[in-house]
């Protein structure tokens, strides 16, 4: 057989198989996260959950939930940020995010009052972390003021700083920064729009449906 014949023969023989590579590699790639988790090689897993605000990004570490991203945030950018701050061993995994997705579903339906998924706030430090931890303890259906949260975090006068810490809450909804309002009764702000805060407080029965 001539060299050119061999080349042509090889190409012909393989081309139908190679055409399957995009689909088959997708299926194989989808199975990788579970295998990686079993071997302890998966540092961060992400998935998505439906919500009244659109699709939420969920990211979990071995210690708990590290991120809930609203749909207006760029997913790739969020993941790149986490790759830089926590670990680049990130894979999409529906399995690993099942639990938090289930709890969020029930929360939005008004059937869950307390999240049981652990949160991982290890990327937050100092005052910011203490503010988020204090916020995590505000019960369903009640509200605190920025001042009260600042107090619980150990700096009663740092009301504005507490507001900033909540503005950069990496785990909104589950760490309920929507339960923090102004002293005078105003709702204060909310990342991504006050409508969301109103909606969440309505689900919890703090506000009446419009």
């Amino acid at each position, binding site marked *: 057989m001539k060299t050119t014949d061999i080349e042509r023969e090889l190409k012909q023989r393989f081309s139908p198989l190679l055409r399957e590579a995009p689909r*088959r*590699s997708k299926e194989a790639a989808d199975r990788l996260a579970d295998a990686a988790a079993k071997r302890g090689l998966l540092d961060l897993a992400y998935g998505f959950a439906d919500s009244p605000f659109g699709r939420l990004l969920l990211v979990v570490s071995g210690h708990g939930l590290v991120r809930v991203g609203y749909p207006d945030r760029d997913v790739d950018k969020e993941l790149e940020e986490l790759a830089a701050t926590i670990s680049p061993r*990130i894979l999409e995994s529906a399995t690993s995010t099942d639990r938090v997705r289930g709890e969020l579903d029930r929360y939005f339906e008004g059937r869950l009052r307390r999240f049981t998924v652990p949160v991982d706030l290890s990327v937050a430090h100092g005052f910011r972390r203490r503010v988020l931890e204090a916020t995590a303890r505000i019960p369903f259906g009640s509200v605190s003021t920025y001042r009260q949260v600042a107090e619980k975090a150990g700096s009663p006068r740092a009301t504005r700083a507490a507001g900033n810490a909540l503005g950069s809450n990496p785990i909104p909804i589950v760490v309920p920064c929507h339960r923090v309002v102004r002293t005078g009764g105003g709702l204060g702000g909310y990342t991504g729009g006050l409508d969301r805060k109103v909606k969440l407080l309505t689900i919890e029965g703090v506000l009446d449906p419009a």
Partner: protein
Amino acid sequence: MQPFQSFMEEHRTYVYRFLIATVGPAEADDTFQETFLSALRAYPKLEHDRNLRGWILAIAARKAIDAARGRARRATPVAAVPEVTHHSESGQPFDTGDPLWQAVRALPQRQRVALVHRVILDRPYDELASVMGTTVEAARANVYQALKHLREGWSEDEDD
């Protein structure tokens, strides 16, 4: 460093094509998993300026060798193992008992990698050289030798 998921998305089809052509369609799946698990293990410590495609293909090539060794260990002298016939989507059967496929499989590893890359996957020599960790000239020589072997009905010289 980009998240592993997007790194995998970028290279998965390429790696899978490479594995179909080196270990065959039946073993491509397992070898693919082995390749990316191995990559995931080393990923955080990777130098930022690495050629990632070259890196992942070098791992895939190593895993393909492991797969071949595993196959050799499992082989029985009875040779009564039925050949797997893979039906592709186009309906064209691909018989792994095919003499040409057997001949490709029997090539020395470096020649096989070179041949798969250049002839079957139609990739340029400089990319091939980076996958093989060799010079463009050496890559070219391996392709040449592979084709020569196949043309001569394949001999068992280990000249890589």
